[in-house]
């Protein structure tokens, strides 16, 4: 956690939402608000990061997340370089630090890193020179802080306040970096009740210690919820003997109109995407009146602009 903050408490890296003070989370959300307006102008650029170089280091492929980071950086007038690094089990290790050093020598100011291993962003952040910032775009199962932030931004936009909400996260929490980041954000921002709903095989050991209540039943878990967040179920989960089939999963844990009715009538439905229709969520719900899934995507750009601006500013102070 001190790795992320400077000695005077400013953000230096964004690696995880775990342990970040509430004031910083709020600062990011407030800053993102102002960037929303920029996105609605004809000239969607501001010159804040002009002359800065942002390198997208994606060790795990991703078009969506990488594209939003690229758009966000360009709207700040930064120069963006995309690197999709193919990974092979033998060369992974040496490659990372060598790659990072080479890019730093090319005057990189910021790295946006996505990697299949938990802790990869921390690893890189510990290694870079003091003037370089690292943004974690997803590391293994550990964290996806910008996604967590944009989900909070979405909740704030539609629900106003955090202090009186009941929020449920449904799905494969065990393997989800998004869920972990959401849990940290929700608890830090003061959401009084955070629930996770999943079969036992998809719940991490001791997850209660992160401040959540565990449910294995949708009806009980969704009762009285203001926000329902659905997580993607990856097909690989069937292979580890954690689930028998997508069909059985959908029957008990998929979000349908009937199950959504257990939540409050004005509850909003979120999904970090990409959706598996018919596996974790019914199309009727995904496209229905309570779904805020599409707006979530647009907020992602403003939130990432906010993060980059806060990291790049005052860097040489």
């Amino acid at each position, binding site marked *: 956690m001190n790795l992320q903050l400077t000695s005077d408490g400013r953000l230096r890296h964004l690696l995880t939402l775990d342990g970040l003070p509430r004031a910083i989370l709020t600062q990011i959300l407030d*800053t993102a*608000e*102002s960037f929303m307006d920029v996105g609605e102008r*004809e*000239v969607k650029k*501001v010159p804040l990061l002009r002359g800065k170089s942002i390198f997208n280091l994606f060790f795990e492929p991703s078009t969506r997340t990488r594209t939003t980071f690229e758009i966000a950086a360009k709207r700040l007038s930064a120069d963006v370089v995309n690197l999709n690094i193919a990974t092979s089990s033998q060369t992974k290790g040496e490659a990372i630090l060598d790659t990072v050093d080479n890019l730093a020598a090319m005057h990189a100011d910021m790295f946006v890193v996505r990697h299949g291993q938990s802790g990869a962003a921390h690893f890189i952040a510990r290694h870079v020179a003091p003037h370089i910032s690292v943004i974690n775009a997803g590391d293994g199962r550990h964290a996806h802080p910008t996604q967590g932030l944009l989900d909070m931004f979405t909740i704030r936009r539609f629900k106003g306040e955090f202090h009186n909400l009941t929020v449920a996260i449904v799905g494969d929490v065990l393997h989800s970096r998004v869920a972990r980041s959401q849990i940290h954000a929700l608890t830090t921002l003061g959401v009084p009740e955070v629930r996770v709903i999943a079969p036992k095989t998809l719940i991490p050991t001791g997850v209660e210690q992160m401040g959540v209540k565990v449910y294995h039943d949708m009806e009980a878990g969704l009762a009285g919820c203001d926000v329902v967040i659905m997580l993607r179920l990856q097909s690989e989960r069937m292979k580890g003997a954690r689930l028998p089939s997508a069909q059985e999963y959908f029957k008990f844990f998929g979000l349908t109109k009937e199950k959504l009715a257990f939540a409050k009538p004005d509850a909003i439905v979120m999904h970090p995407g990409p959706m598996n229709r018919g596996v974790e969520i019914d199309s009727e719900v995904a496209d229905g009146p309570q779904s805020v899934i599409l707006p979530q995507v647009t907020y992602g750009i403003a939130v990432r602009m906010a993060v980059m601006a806060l990291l*790049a*500013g005052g860097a*040489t102070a």
Partner: protein
Amino acid sequence: MHASLPDVDPLIAQLAAAIAPTLTPDTVIVGIHTGGVWVAERLHAMLHCALPLGTLDISFYRDDFSRIGLHPQVKPSNLPFDLEGRDILLVDDVLHSGRTVRAAMNELFDYGRPASIRLAVLVDRGGHELPIRPDFTGLTLAVPAHQNINLSRLDDGHLTLSLA
């Protein structure tokens, strides 16, 4: 020190009187947050402008971002009119180095291409670092470099100038 600074309201009235003959019905007034907006609001009322008041937050256009970072409270810029071919009266409370006005102009041009921009300031304190000069000035006062002149708004809405 306060005794030597004039009241603000008469200054604004003076400004309004100087500006009025140059206005057209299509001119828009744009105030720069925060002090410039206070002054612009009064001018807008005094000059009976038909078009709504515009406000600019120049946080994203400052040239000292690398050094001091983002201001914690960025207010949204609000320009509820088309800028294309428009005559703009840009308003700020204190003109000092000129960098704020430069940032404001950069931002305005990101919205569109105005026909003209004229600058009205409540106080010109000297110390210009850029080739920017006001078209309308309420008060010209040489303030030493180590001092600041500030516009404040009291709870009752009254505006005052002070030196610090």
